[in-house]
């Protein structure tokens, strides 16, 4: 059995397979093509959720993505569980497991409905009011209790097992929505050479045509025409049809985000299918054919299960072959509900009465209803309902009040007219204008290259919908540069339902509005909205935030216009003056998975590794992140912690020889006859006199005079420099150089090329470095005389070309071997083997930091923070005072930059040599000074020095260089640490070792 409410109506129902699924643990049977909603309704289930705040029983209001109530969790396992899906969109398949949300212990007996009894204490603005008082209630009541009860779905407990992808696409014409307008637009636009994408959020394309049993087009029933049109489109090579694809966001310059749900409807998806695909489409022209959403009516107790939109009931009966109720009361302000009533009647339902708000009613649909014996009551309202888990009756009275008549029913249909879906149009910054006739906003002036067609433009008669779609399609193709080859005509036969509409509350008795819901999902009543206006909120943006109307996951698709209507009437201001809340993407909730796409695990971010990385990994190195580079941090041996490993590495390098991978350093080749002049302008140093074959330490400033980067530069030839930068600064430095070259000095004959990844850089440091290297090198004399400190030679090492630097960042005799990156690993291993007799020791970045700190060498970004000048860092010697100009020169003479009490780099030695200071700690003169204690500096680097057998630190201290020998205080949580100011060079101040 597929449900007692199944009728032979939809042609889809003819040959559909049975599908088995569970809802809240109970097994049900539906038919292929059903949504979870239509399958449950077929089984007589209307109770599907509890409301957000008061936990009132709720049922299906709609049949589409505007559904506010039927939020369900879907997924048999936590790793495939998704909360807050709409039952009206979830397609059933064999084995589907779904559950209701926001209820405990069960949907039928939910303890949360107790909120209902306290509703007087939970008025609009309740959450804001709780921010004020009482304070003690936060811990005991608000946080633990309210947070749990007010939740919406549960986040899955395990990582998502599915994969997601993102794809960029381009087309000439993108059409959003495949209802009558969208189909006509696609037929016309693709009758050209334009590439066309037609997307629709539903499983089956056709939109309202699929639910229409009265209209015909080109002699075919509406749904058949839609299918024929789709067949035709499928045959065209320039058309891409995308169903289950929501255009959720508009971004600048016709960039539209589409979310395609690929596998959610399948029992057994193929392994090569992502769950969802996020399409980022750049369209030359866009046709918006998003349709319109029916509006609920606001009356007392309008939220009981069994009260739904008239059009939704029509869709259930005509498209899915499911009748949502057998005794029906219809409450309407327009003709379309009559059409729905007639369709339900034809399916076997009994229409008790049609209650119409309008004073007098007439026309085709009214006459037809009357002719079929349906009782029509004009100038009347439904002013209340009864029934807890399902509606049981409606109280009907005259619109102005008076005695009420109670009519038994299990279904109430409501219709307040239609609200055009202007979301994407509005996101595209298009101007909306208010239509008094439609009681709705419609698209006005466009800003981007798009046009709205059909119902989303406020056109509701099928003939004009198709006409506007066809025109929009032709216009879009032509504007994209592809005039269509012709026009076709459409013979539409349909009876109009007019455009009557209503917004606001139908109630005349404001006391009764306590239960007249405006926003179903966020539990906001007409009374709440009115209260907000009484408390002084007049702008709809303020009312929205105060009452939370329109702030739920449905973003007010059903509620916004009614809230506007209530406010407008209450404060007696025209609707356009009350305003309209901003439409923001996404149009419907979109998964995090879709936005993350491939960017998870290894693909979250590129991980840059040097060609020597795998060797270090095999040696058990620990790595640290430097930007997206992985750098070997230290190489612990068995039983060693970081402290022991670093102490050993430092000692080995100072006593014999250490080997270090410096490949990540940024490198730029600067070539051209004006290369030296360019260097003079970019760096503080003077370069003209640097001879080829020599190295120099260079400092680069920003225009404000503060240190931006530094590095060793080799002059390879008069017109060629090999520049190195910091690891993190490589891209920034190249960009700045290129910027200056292109915008300030285009006359210079000099060009830049990034060579960071061309070279592997192997640093060999220590008294035995030369001995290790000598046997491997061809054509270079490594002796101290032939190759002094700060020189560079070209030759071969292990048979491959090298640029061999004699340079030291440790204070020891040192070399940096540059070889083409592909040879890096092999050369490294050869050097390591040659170093074995000397106990060669690989060291990581931590040891490098300690060794350079002992020598007082700065690290940009550690000793500098963007406010440090060369003089502050003790690098005044590197500034070419005689140079006419360089970037930052003028700033260096600003008064603030030459003050004597600027923070200057000094060494700090703690009184207790065993205490290692904390980097970043603040330095004060008098720790007993009342708070706030004036701070005169901070620690920039601090380590245990195995070489000196004590702690060492570098610090920036106000007027530091004139404080030599002074004792300063570093207050820490567990006491004040004393330290003495010393020179920043703590080891081998004369530099005898590096010149060895």
């Amino acid at each position, binding site marked *: 059995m597929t449900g007692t409410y199944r009728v032979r109506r939809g042609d889809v129902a003819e040959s559909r397979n049975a599908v088995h699924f569970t809802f809240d643990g109970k097994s049900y049977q539906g038919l292929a093509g059903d949504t979870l909603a239509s399958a449950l309704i077929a089984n007589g289930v209307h109770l599907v959720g509890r409301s957000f705040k008061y936990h009132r029983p709720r049922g299906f209001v709609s049949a589409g993505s505007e559904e506010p109530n039927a939020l369900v969790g879907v997924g048999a396992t936590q790793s495939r569980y998704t909360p807050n899906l709409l039952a009206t969109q979830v397609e059933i398949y064999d084995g589907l497991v779904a559950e209701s949300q926001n209820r405990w212990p069960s949907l039928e007996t939910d303890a949360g409905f107790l909120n209902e009894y306290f509703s007087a204490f939970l008025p609009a603005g309740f959450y804001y009011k709780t921010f004020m008082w009482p304070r003690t209630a936060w811990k005991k009541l608000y946080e633990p209790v309210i947070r749990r009860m007010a939740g919406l779905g549960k986040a899955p407990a395990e990582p998502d097992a599915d*994969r997601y992808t993102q794809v*960029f696409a381009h087309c000439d014409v993108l059409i959003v929505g495949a209802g009558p307008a969208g189909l006509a637009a696609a037929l016309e636009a693709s009758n050209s050479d334009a590439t066309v994408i037609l997307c629709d959020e539903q499983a089956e394309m056709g939109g309202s045509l699929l639910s229409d049993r009265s209209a015909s087009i080109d002699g075919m029933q509406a749904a058949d025409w839609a299918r024929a049109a789709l067949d035709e489109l499928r045959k065209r090579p320039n058309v891409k049809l995308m169903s289950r694809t929501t255009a959720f966001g508009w971004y600048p310059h016709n960039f539209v985000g589409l979310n395609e749900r690929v596998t959610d409807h399948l029992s057994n998806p193929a392994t*090569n299918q992502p769950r969802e695909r996020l399409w980022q489409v750049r369209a030359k022209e866009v046709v918006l054919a998003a349709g319109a959403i029916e509006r609920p009516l606001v009356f007392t107790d309008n939220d009981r299960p069994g009260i739904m939109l008239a059009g939704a009931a029509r869709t259930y009966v005509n498209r899915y072959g499911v009748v949502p109720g057998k005794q029906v009361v219809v409450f309407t302000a327009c003709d379309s509900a009559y059409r729905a009533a007639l369709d339900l009647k034809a399916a076997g339902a009994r229409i008790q009465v049609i209650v119409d708000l309008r004073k007098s009613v007439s026309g085709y649909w009214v006459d037809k209803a009357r002719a079929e014996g349906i009782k029509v009551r004009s100038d009347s309202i439904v002013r209340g309902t009864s029934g807890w888990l399902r509606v049981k009756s409606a109280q009907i009275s005259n619109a102005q009040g008076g005695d009420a008549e109670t009519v038994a029913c299990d279904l109430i249909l409501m219709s307040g007219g239609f609200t055009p879906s202007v979301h994407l149009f509005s996101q595209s910054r298009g101007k909306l204008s208010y239509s008094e006739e439609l009681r709705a906003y419609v698209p006005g002036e466009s800003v981007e290259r798009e046009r709205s067609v059909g119902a989303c433009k406020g056109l509701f008669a099928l003939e004009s919908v198709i006409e506007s779609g066809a025109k929009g399609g032709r216009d879009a193709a032509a504007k994209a540069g592809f005039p269509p080859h012709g026009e076709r005509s459409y013979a539409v036969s349909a009876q109009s339902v007019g455009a009557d509409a209503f917004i606001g509350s139908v109630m005349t008795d404001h006391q009764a509005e306590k239960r007249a819901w405006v926003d179903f999902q966020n539990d906001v009543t007409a009374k709440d909205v009115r209260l907000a206006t009484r408390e002084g909120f007049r702008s709809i943006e303020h009312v929205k935030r105060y009452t939370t109307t329109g702030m739920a996951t449905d973003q007010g698709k059903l509620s916004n216009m009614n809230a506007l209507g209530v406010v407008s009437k209450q404060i007696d201001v025209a609707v356009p003056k009350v305003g309209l809340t901003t439409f923001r993407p996404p149009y419907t909730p979109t998964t995090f998975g879709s936005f993350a796409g491939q960017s998870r695990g290894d693909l979250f971010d590129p991980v840059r590794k040097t060609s020597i990385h795998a060797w270090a990994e095999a040696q058990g190195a620990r790595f640290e992140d430097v930007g997206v580079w992985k750098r070997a941090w230290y190489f612990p041996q068995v039983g060693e912690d970081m402290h022991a490993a670093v102490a050993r590495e430092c000692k080995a390098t100072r006593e014999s020889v250490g080997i270090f991978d410096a490949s990540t350093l940024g490198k730029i080749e600067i070539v051209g006859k004006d290369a030296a002049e360019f260097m003079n302008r970019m760096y503080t140093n003077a370069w003209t006199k640097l001879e080829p074959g020599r190295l120099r330490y260079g400092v680069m400033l920003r225009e404000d005079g503060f240190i931006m980067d530094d590095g060793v530069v080799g002059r390879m030839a008069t017109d060629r420099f090999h520049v190195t930068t910091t690891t993190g600064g490589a891209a920034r430095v190249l960009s700045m150089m290129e910027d200056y070259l292109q915008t300030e000095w285009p006359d210079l004959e000099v060009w830049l090329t*990034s060579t960071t990844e061309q070279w592997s850089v192997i640093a060999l440091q220590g008294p035995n470095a030369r001995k290790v290297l000598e046997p491997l090198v061809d054509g270079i004399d490594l002796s101290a005389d032939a190759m002094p400190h700060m020189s560079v030679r070209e030759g071969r090492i292990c048979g491959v070309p090298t640029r061999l630097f004699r340079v030291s960042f440790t204070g020891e005799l040192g070399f940096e071997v540059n070889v083409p990156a592909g040879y890096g690993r092999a050369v490294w291993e050869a050097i390591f083997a040659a170093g074995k007799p000397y106990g060669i020791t690989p060291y990581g970045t931590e040891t490098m930091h300690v060794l350079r700190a002992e020598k007082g060498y700065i690290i940009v970004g550690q000793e500098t923070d963007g406010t440090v000048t060369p003089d502050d860092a003790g690098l005044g010697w590197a500034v070419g005072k005689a140079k006419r100009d360089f970037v930052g020169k003028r700033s260096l003479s600003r008064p603030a930059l030459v003050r004597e009490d600027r923070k200057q780099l000094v060494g700090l030695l703690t009184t207790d040599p065993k205490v290692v200071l904390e980097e970043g700690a603040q330095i004060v003169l008098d720790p007993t000074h009342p708070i706030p204690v004036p701070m005169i500096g901070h620690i920039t680097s601090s380590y245990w020095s195995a070489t000196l057998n004590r702690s060492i630190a570098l610090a920036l201290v106000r007027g530091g260089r004139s404080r030599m020998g002074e004792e300063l205080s570093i207050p820490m949580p567990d006491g004040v640490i004393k330290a003495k100011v010393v020179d920043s060079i703590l080891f081998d101040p004369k530099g005898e070792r590096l010149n060895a």
Partner: protein
Amino acid sequence: MLSPAIMRSNALSPMQSSGTTAASTTSLSVLPDAAKLVFRGKTEAIEAAGAHFGVKPSLEACRFAAVGGRSVYWLGPDEWLFQAVNENPIEVFGGMSAALQGQACSLVDVSHRSDGIAVAGPTAALVLNHGCPLDLSLKAFPVGMCTRTVLGKASLLLSRSEEHVFHVDVWRSFAPYVWQFLDEARSLS
């Protein structure tokens, strides 16, 4: 002493054997080593460079020219990439340098800076569009086109040598990421 050819390692060597086994109509393969030189300089110099190299560099933006295993890619108004497949970088660089003596230009050997990947098959463009925002239709990105662009979070040089064959030239440290990215994309399309 080992020969340079044996010593040379490619950042993609570990990737080739670790691809997904999922059937895909798009193949990924590592391109052979090549001598690669970045030329930057004035127009007169590029003509001289092209004459020596035996391939006339395109002066039209985003186009490459090829003769046999040698090709020249337009990278910018004053920048071209000269590539000679399976040739010795030192020899190619030496020859070019000599030919450009006295010319207003810069020539830099970047043979080891990047690795190459061929993306081939009828859905190659779709696979690349998983991370590359450009319009890769034949109309917008014809055979013979090249450009610097991005794939996911990596920069690269993309060129189309045949309707269904694209070449990706990417800096070594980004090459494994790009390979994995393409492998994931092709397994899902």
